[in-house]
């Protein structure tokens, strides 16, 4: 009893309570992806400031440029990763019932991955197939 030096009780260790040891990595990845998004989004924001993008021919020709395609792929990966990290914190903060929290966390991470995969697939298929 008295030689248990941990702050966690044995029952809480068995239940898996306490720190998941992922917090600092989450914090750092949030900042790194933020910097990546910052670098990638400025040229896109400048380009999307005119509504030519809403015509089929211009949009297709725009997406076929190599730098646009590459920038778009990198932006989708960085933005969805940043968003997945962010939505994870939001769900953990506001949802307390364990089963609902688990379900929403898993669903949000899967959806973000699916979104990134769809975006990358779309850009690649426009570039290679037209």
């Amino acid at each position, binding site marked *: 009893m008295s030689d248990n030096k941990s702050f966690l009780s044995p029952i809480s260790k068995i239940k898996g309570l306490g720190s998941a040891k992922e917090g600092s990595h989450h914090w750092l990845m949030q*900042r790194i992806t*933020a*910097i990546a998004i*910052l670098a990638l*989004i400025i040229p896109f*924001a400048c380009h*999307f*400031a*005119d*509504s030519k993008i*809403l*015509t*089929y021919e211009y*949009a*297709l020709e725009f*997406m076929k440029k190599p730098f646009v395609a590459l920038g*778009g792929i990198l932006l*989708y990966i960085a*933005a*969805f990763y940043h*968003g997945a990290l*962010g*939505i994870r914190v*939001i769900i953990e903060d506001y949802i307390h019932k364990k089963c609902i929290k688990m379900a929403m966390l898993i669903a949000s991470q899967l*959806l*973000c991955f699916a*979104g990134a995969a*769809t*975006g990358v697939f*779309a*850009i690649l*298929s*426009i570039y290679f197939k037209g």
Partner: protein
Amino acid sequence: MLCNEVFQKIPLHFSSLRLLYSNMLIMVDITMSENNPVELRERPLSPHLSIYKPQITSVMSIMHRLTGICLLLGLFLDVAFVFALVCGEETFNSMVAFINSFFGKLIVTGFVFSLYYHLCNGIRHLFWDTGKGLELPCVRKSGILVLVISITLSIITLISFYS
């Protein structure tokens, strides 16, 4: 649980009255705890969101979170846009028709403002991470700066997009 305030008001020489009172409370407590175990009892909560004055610090913080959520939803819409480009001209044109509708214009406006607000406030967050500008007057001034810059940039972008 004995209600201490009431219990202490009963003078000590009224010991039988104290005993009676404590027995009553214990009976009430036992009947309460049969139906609602300790974890499930409804306990009052002191008011927080309903009484705390909204300030530029707190409002901008929750706006950062809100715009983050809006940006994620808008990102899915953006993926749908590029995917519609893959699917062919008709799909793309119906997507464009949705964007040009009133609801679509609302979404575009919200997305553009969310983008610039989250971007500028994110830069403010990065400054805070280095330890700079954490004093309260500086926080308020940088907050106003972020608001002014993001509103200006969104107005410029929306005007050039819709003309």
